[in-house]
């Protein structure tokens, strides 16, 4: 038997309490990993969907928090195309729409001749060649049970599914695309778009990109211009989501800390006599303190391991649920796992120091007399 065996045995011999404390930490760690993983996944999905379209700069209405509600005059596209360094501009009207089947889907309207159509990877059917035609991502098509030639109803209007496409990003695969004119009519936003997708002539030359962007900003002060990578950083909805994720995680961690403190303080109270025995057999205050700190550390290390498995496993499970398949994308990296594990271990340390200190302050004679 070595020294670590003693705190380990203390935990093993009180399985219910140890397990409940461990689960408290595991839930905090697991929910943090799952929430951050999903939020990162959402950002990644967004970036991927924009990158896949070959968009280098997105032009949004300045000062708008919720971009789906923004309206920009579609005629600005011509002026944008005239700026030196711009290769192509594609207006897009996007909205989150409830389908007549009850599903909620992202619906986008693209103009005829838009370069965006060429970025789609068709898995069946063809691109829409007339009004009243729609094309949909594979996930939403599977979810709705639609294939080319089928009819679908959108805001009371019938559309024919012309084709199904499969992109890399989950967001794209859950999008229905219809001609821009149809979308404007459906949304009663004639002549308006939500954003412009801009392709640059020399995207690889970053100096050139910065130069074109500043020229665009100067010429169109009513618009804000974002390079693809900046889109998620500047998005207010994602900022809010991130803040919520952090808020929930902090609450979960504080709760885990309280559980840990409570468990170890109860343990000190219950084991008063044992602490007296340790003192009597010559254990120093430092060794007794170390025993309780190790108990806390063991709980937090095991809790973060279980939490990691729960978080990652839970995300996999969610992502593979038939109803959610293709809707959830997540990103778990060492950048998430390492800080959360370190935080959980520090939590174990902080949560055990006070109870451990209390244990060393017990009067050994009274401790030996305790029931």
């Amino acid at each position, binding site marked *: *038997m*070595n*020294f670590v*065996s*003693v705190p380990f*045995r*203390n935990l*093993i*011999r009180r399985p219910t309490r140890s397990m409940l404390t461990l689960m408290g930490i595991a839930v905090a760690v697991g929910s943090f990993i799952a929430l951050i993983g999903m939020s990162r996944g959402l950002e990644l999905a967004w970036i991927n969907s924009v990158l896949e379209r070959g968009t280098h700069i997105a032009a949004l209405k300045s000062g708008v928090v919720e971009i789906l509600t923004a309206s920009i005059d579609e005629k600005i596209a011509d002026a944008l195309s005239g700026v030196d360094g711009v290769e192509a501009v594609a207006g897009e009207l996007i909205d989150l729409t409830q389908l007549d089947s009850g599903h909620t889907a992202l619906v986008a309207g693209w103009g005829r001749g838009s370069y965006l159509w060429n970025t789609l990877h068709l898995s069946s059917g063809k691109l829409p060649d007339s009004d009243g035609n729609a094309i949909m991502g594979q996930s939403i098509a599977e979810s709705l049970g639609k294939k080319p030639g089928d009819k679908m109803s959108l805001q009371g209007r019938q559309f024919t599914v012309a084709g199904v496409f499969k992109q890399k990003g989950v967001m794209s695969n859950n999008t229905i695309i219809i001609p821009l004119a149809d979308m404007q009519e459906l949304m009663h936003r004639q002549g308006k778009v939500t954003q412009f997708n801009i392709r640059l002539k020399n995207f690889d030359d970053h100096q050139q990109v910065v130069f074109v962007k500043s020229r665009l900003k100067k010429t169109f002060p009513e618009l804000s211009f974002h390079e693809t990578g900046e889109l998620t950083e500047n998005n207010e909805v994602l900022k809010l989501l991130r803040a919520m994720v952090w808020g929930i995680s902090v609450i979960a961690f504080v709760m885990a800390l309280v559980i840990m403190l409570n468990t170890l303080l109860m343990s000190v109270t219950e084991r008063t*006599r*044992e602490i*007296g*025995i*340790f*003192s*009597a*057999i*010559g*254990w*120093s*205050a430092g*060794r007794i303190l170390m025993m309780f700190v190790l108990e806390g550390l063991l709980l937090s290390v095991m809790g973060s391991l279980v939490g990691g498995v729960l978080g990652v496993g839970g995300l996999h499970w969610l992502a593979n649920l038939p109803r959610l398949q293709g809707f959830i994308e997540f990103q778990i990296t060492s950048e998430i796992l390492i800080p959360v594990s370190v935080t959980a271990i520090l939590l174990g340390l902080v949560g055990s120091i006070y109870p451990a200190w209390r244990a060393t302050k017990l009067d*050994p*004679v009274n401790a*030996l007399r305790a029931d």
Partner: protein
Amino acid sequence: MMSPLVAIQNVSKSYDSGKITALYDATLSVSPSEYIVLTGPSGSGKSTLMHILCGLDFPSSGSVFFAGKMPAGKGEWSRLRALHIGFVFQSFHLLPTLTASENIQAAMFGVMRSKKERREKALELLFRVGLSDRRHHYPNELSGGERQRVAIARSLANSPDLILADEPTGNLDSGSAAKIMSLLREINENYKTTVIVVSHDPEIARNADRIVHIVDGRIV
């Protein structure tokens, strides 16, 4: 005359801001390899004296010496208890989460570095108290007599100079009590370990080299 292993000089102990006094001006000197029984009625101050002799409690006034030196504080007493003092309690005081062998090994942390050394020493001690076959049993799986024998084995873990036994037979039947007392006597005779037994049982006191009576906190 041999210099004392442990001694107290004019030791008094009071509680509750002096309202209760457990020991009055006690002076006692215990030589190496002595077998002493401290007797006296309940509440006479026997346990207080024993706790002071090993640094688990501290006197309100007076001095305590161990091997001719005055230990400085809690830390030094902890070290002395680990290296030189073994304990046997009336309620056995074994750690419930550890087996018989591990209870003995727990007393060796910081004294014997190697895990193998600790395990072998524990086995040897369990053999010495006749419990080799019970080494993997937890305290709640042992009888009272067996628990006390494990406690005695634990007290011997670091080959102490002094064993303090506080009413070691208080919770045992007469048969087990006799075995425990003969074991303590055997340890004293074979290993020249000083043994101080606290007991109010005159039968136990009969076998002592010296009997120290305490009445109302005074050594008489």
